[in-house]
């Protein structure tokens, strides 16, 4: 404890890490389901915006936070159903539809926010819950045990994702749909139905990640509030090599960069420009892609529509 001056900022940064990582974890885990089944959704940014807005709208109209999250989840499922119908059943290009969803998300939420009446005072967001005893442990306490429920929820989420993907028949089918759909079809299962369901499930979770921003992080909706987190989730999936645990770890790392750059912005004469940490996730993702190259862990039939 010689250099006391760094102690408090260190705690602040580390405590912010998990919080910063939370929306990305939700978005990346959700998108992972769809990618594992073979559907790439680059429209995460738009879906998250829709989630952020619908959760916020529900809360403004008096819904309890929990209900607002559920509402965001349902709206995300609807968005996913549209995306899935277009890409899986009509077999339109996934990248193009994803790009359109980003525009739609920006447009729809911006439009509704401006024409609707959402007050200006914001909403009452969920409070951090301190875990008894654990929260009082010095250093570790504030970093790990004083968070809002959604932050803690990332743990069961990651566990759930792991369990579904690797321990259930559904997960087995999903992975087959993305890695070699012909085998799934030969086993008598519908590739399209599995892909569609994965997209719907995935978008619901992505949407919750967006809602976190308005219901647990700030208390307001701002146009474009997602500000790149959707794209960062895409990077996290690559970086985490399409596994739930990898995604969790990569999100925490990226969350750390996020927290660091926010902290650096508050320091007037920092030796390192905060943008260095801002850019780190994207640069690292490119590096990972280059290193694994053709041997990448990506599902083999990602972006390829299923044709028997």
């Amino acid at each position, binding site marked *: 404890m010689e250099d006391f001056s760094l102690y408090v900022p260190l705690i602040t940064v580390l405590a912010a890490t998990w919080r910063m990582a939370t929306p990305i974890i939700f978005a990346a885990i959700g998108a992972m389901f769809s990618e594992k089944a073979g559907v*790439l959704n*680059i429209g995460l940014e738009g879906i998250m915006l829709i989630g952020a807005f619908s959760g916020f709208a529900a809360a403004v109209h008096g819904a309890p936070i929990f209900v607002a999250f559920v509402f965001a989840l349902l709206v995300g499922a609807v968005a996913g159903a549209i995306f899935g119908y*277009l890409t899986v059943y*009509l*077999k*339109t*290009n996934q*990248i*193009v*539809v994803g*790009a*359109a*969803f*980003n*525009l*739609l998300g*920006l*447009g*729809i939420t*911006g*439009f*509704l926010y*401006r*024409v609707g009446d959402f007050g200006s005072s914001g909403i009452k967001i969920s409070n951090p819950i301190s875990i008894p005893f654990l929260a009082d442990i010095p250093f570790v306490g504030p970093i790990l045990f004083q968070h809002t429920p959604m932050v803690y929820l990332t743990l069961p989420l990651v566990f759930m994702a792991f369990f579904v993907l690797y321990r259930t028949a559904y997960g087995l089918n999903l992975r087959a749909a993305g890695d070699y759909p012909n085998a799934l079809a030969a086993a008598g299962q519908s590739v399209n139905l599995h892909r569609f369901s994965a997209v719907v499930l995935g978008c619901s979770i992505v949407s919750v990640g967006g809602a976190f921003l308005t219901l647990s992080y700030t208390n307001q909706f701002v*146009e474009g509030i997602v500000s*790149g987190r959707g*794209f*960062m989730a*895409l*990077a996290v999936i*690559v970086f985490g090599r399409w596994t739930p645990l990898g995604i969790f770890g990569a999100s925490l790392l990226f969350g750390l960069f996020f927290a660091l750059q926010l902290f650096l912005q508050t320091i007037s004469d920092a030796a390192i*420009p905060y*943008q*260095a940490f*801002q*850019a780190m996730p*994207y*640069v690292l*993702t*490119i590096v990972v*892609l*280059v290193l694994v*190259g*053709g041997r*990448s862990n*990506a599902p083999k039939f990602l*972006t390829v529509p299923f044709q028997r």
Partner: protein
Amino acid sequence: MRYAETIKSLGAPVLAIAIALAFGALLIEVAGFSSVEAYSEMWTGIFGSMRNFSEVLLKATPLILIGAGLAISFRSGVWNIGAEGQFYAGGMVAAVVALQMEGVNAWISIPVILIAASLAGAFWGGIAGFLRARYGASEIVTTIMLNYVAIILTSYLVTGPLMEAQGLFPQSDRFPQETQLPRILSGTRLNIGIYIAIIAAIVSWYIISQSRRGFSMRAVGASPDAARYAGINVNKNIIYSISYSGALAGLAASIELIGVTKRLFQTISPGYGFEGIAVALLANNNPLGAIFSGALFGALRSGAEIMQIGAGVPSVLIFIIQGLVIISVITLGTIRAYRKLRPED
């Protein structure tokens, strides 16, 4: 017969725009406004005065450039989602060069800026092309990542090395007068950029459909295996096509900077790079068509601002219309291809 086919090929885009506008009207009505009023305000915003129309063309300029470039990239089978980043790369270099041009003759300074920015955009796109050709890294992911790297670099420049001397705002100093792109209509901001954009679109059309290089690129886009059989270097053409689209995005940025904003700042693009995807798709990846689809989206953007002021309908509506245009175009295209595939059933 050629004409009949041309008219037929116009069918899907026109229908797509109609669907999108109709849906927009529905939204406007649901939100409690009059769609007739909103769209007529938009019409005024577009054609109401010479000044309004000049703003349309001003906004269309980067969209035409980016759309024409992306059309070539998409035709070559390269999914360049990174026009936004290539725009920023061009913008940064344009600013750095422009700030050095104090006292240099405009006949020299302007071409130098435009060329430097194009090269920067080409380089930024070329990175993703190289990584795909050499390491098999998906250009979809790398271009998205490079978007952010460029945007963050820009943010670094305007808060650091290039920050204005006064140190008030995160923006560069004003570029010297010598770098001002010549205006073509007095009393408006319209400059020769629109000419450059149209010429670039025509050149792009020439390259992709009339030149040897374009033949190779299209072959690579249509069938990489057959292209290799025909002795065409697939990797080289991937890098060429994405670099070319990057160059046009960089060029667009320099025109925007020395023609309109006069400074580098953090958000020099309101999403031109993503909108350019819609422009290219609506044009069915034909660079000549990008002149019209770029103008249309420029008009929507410009008209929407007047619509917002006049009718109170939020201008973000145009993002919805753009998104719907993309989805309609691609869905109509898929349905048509599907019908063609199975005439029997």
